[in-house]
């Protein structure tokens, strides 16, 4: 299946990809202030027990994101 964009929830466990842009302005404001910038290397570490959140590493910094939040971060294919 070919798609235009991939976002964080599409990553397999331990897969790494480069973040391109954010599709939600409010979240972009929050994430950039936390140091999550376009161009960052994102590694999927694991899913939360109830499946709604992801444990990711952004340039080596550990972070938890909700599924909706993760889906608003578009990745390089």
């Amino acid at each position: 299946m070919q798609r235009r964009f991939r976002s964080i929830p599409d990553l397999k466990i331990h897969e790494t990809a480069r973040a391109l842009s954010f599709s939600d302005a409010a979240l972009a404001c929050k994430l950039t202030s936390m140091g999550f910038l376009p161009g960052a290397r994102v590694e999927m570490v694991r899913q939360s027990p109830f499946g709604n959140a992801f444990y990711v590493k952004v340039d080596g910094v550990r972070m938890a994101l909700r599924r909706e939040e993760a889906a608003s971060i578009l990745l390089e294919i």
Partner: protein
Amino acid sequence: MSGGQRLPRIGVIGNPNSGKSTVFNHLTGLRQKTGNFPGVTVDIKEGSLRLPGGAEVTLIDFPGTYSLYPTSSDEKLVSTVLSNQQSEFFPDALVYIADVNHLEKHLLLLTQLLDLQLPLVLALNMADTAEELGIKVNVSRLSEKLGIPVVFVSGRTGDNMNRLVLEIEKLIPAIGNISRKAFFEMDATEKQVAEAVRLNLGENNPYRALQLAHHFEWLPFLNDSDRATLATIVQTKNFVSLRAQVEETLARYDLFTPIVEDAIQQPQQFPDTPTDRIDAVLTHRIGGPFVFIAVMLVIFQAIFDWSAYPMDWIDSSFAELNSWLQQTLPAHWTTELLTDGILAGLAGILVFVPQIALLFLLITILEEVGYMARVVFLFDRIMRRFGMNGRSVVALIGGSACAVPAIMSSRTIGNWKERLITVLVTPFISCSARIPVYLVLIGMAVPRVRIGGIIGAQTLVFGAMYALGVAAALFAGWTLKRYLKTREPSFLAIELPVYRMPDWKNVGLTVWEKVSAFIIGAGKIILIVSVALWALSRFGPGDAIERAATKAQQEAAAAGLGEAETEDLTAQKKLEASWAGQMGKAFEPVIRPLGYDWKIGIGLLTSFAAREVFTGTLAILYNMGSSEADINDRSENEAKATLREKMQRETFSDTGQPVYTFATALSLLVFYALAMQCMSTLAVVRRETGSWKWALWQFISMTGLAWLAAWLVQIIFA
């Protein structure tokens, strides 16, 4: 404040997880004060520091913040203070704490503060771990490029703190005359907006003027006309706040990233650290929640079991002191005031200290090591079902110690609705003030048997009380979720910090701060209630007490009662005739459906100041029976008769039925689990929600629910 010159104020500021509080604690030690309890309206921690030259400065500990563009009420507080020069917390100079291991992410806020034109020193924290990781920093290069002094420190080991203090001293002469070149160059629209704000509101610092335009909708210190002016400026200049925020943030990164890269040498790859291995277990999809439950069980065990030893010791010490005083001092009402009023009140406060201290100790350790952030990640989904946020778990766990600081910890929740629900439901969690009430009532209602030879029936009921609290909190959250509406976005996005050993000095100070705030804040209320209660039960309207005593003696003589029985009857009748007795009697119709008599009524009434007063109240009320008798005539056993035994002997005066049946004790347990009976909590709810509306609403609905549930229990089990 009136009188005296204001000391220079130095703000300590930095990102979350930068080790900011460790540095603050190192600099101020025990010279700190916080406003945790009613009467004090301070939101930010302050401490004092004496500089080598002899001058004293006030240090202000700001909540950890990523940016001046806030997403939580904690961060809003920082923006509010920094955009208002009239604020009583507005700093004259700043110490910026950054984690040297993540400098490339921790300098955004610093560059924003540079543009506020305040004297500033940058402290690179966690020098000790940086060395281990092989990170090297060219401090003078960094200092030169940023145009501010830079010091390498370690908050944990205390290394280089003297250097930092010296740099703080050098900031003082610079107060009020800093003019740097703006770090961030505003675009044309931003410049026009800042200029318009300067002309209309007189804000001369362009970046602070821009802040007003960004945040005018919620900044609390603006008046209506300023707000309208700012709205007009924003509209006419076509200023799109959110987009400008993101663009400014990215522009700042572009400016400071080369500076950091130039000054820092760090290894290319970070090895698989212990944090990853620990998290493989603690945040595991299946294992994670089990570890969490195990951790909660340990905490439960600690407050129920371990703290029993020091509590028993405090309890018996006070009992001994009390009887010694009664024997030594002359029999006068002032002696009674001291023993039955003041001492009983003090015992009621101090007996909690071990429990509260132990709970805060464990919770602080969990926070310090970094586990709480994982809990937020694990339970975000569940909490959202109940109208809350993963961050609410931290408040709810804290609520098992004391709702007041727990409610304050909800400030990290950005979304208004999720935060309000957290504030409203946290008092349902059984706090340590409920424990003594539970202990007395469970001891009476539940036999000391072991079910299946393993777990005690009493322990089981005790656990059930906690479960009831959690269930009530979740149910209330689920209900409120339906009725509250907000358009604010809700975020999880949280950093999971590297695990580290707790800094014991930090832990000790936090526990000390919370325990002393409890003793002073809540203790005051308990002591006042205790003395007032003593007076109300010792005195009555006119000569009612004397008449009741005479009448009781006549009745006893007519019935041919013995000496001890006569005394008990007399004491009982005197209490009934006292002010407290009258109040309890007037209140009895309200609680009679629940199976309670007027003495419990007095206990309930006084509990509305603070729950922990209940056992003290009953102790005072039931002790009245014997304290009138000559202490020397009392047999050893009678003197030792515990409150519990006295309560079991109580009967209703009209029907002669025992008061403390199984159903009544159970119903009282449920009432105490659910009712809102804490003035300190109501005061903090008012402060955190900004109006009495929510505090009042919380009081009425929680107490109403408690009454209904207690009534149901009485009907089912009677």
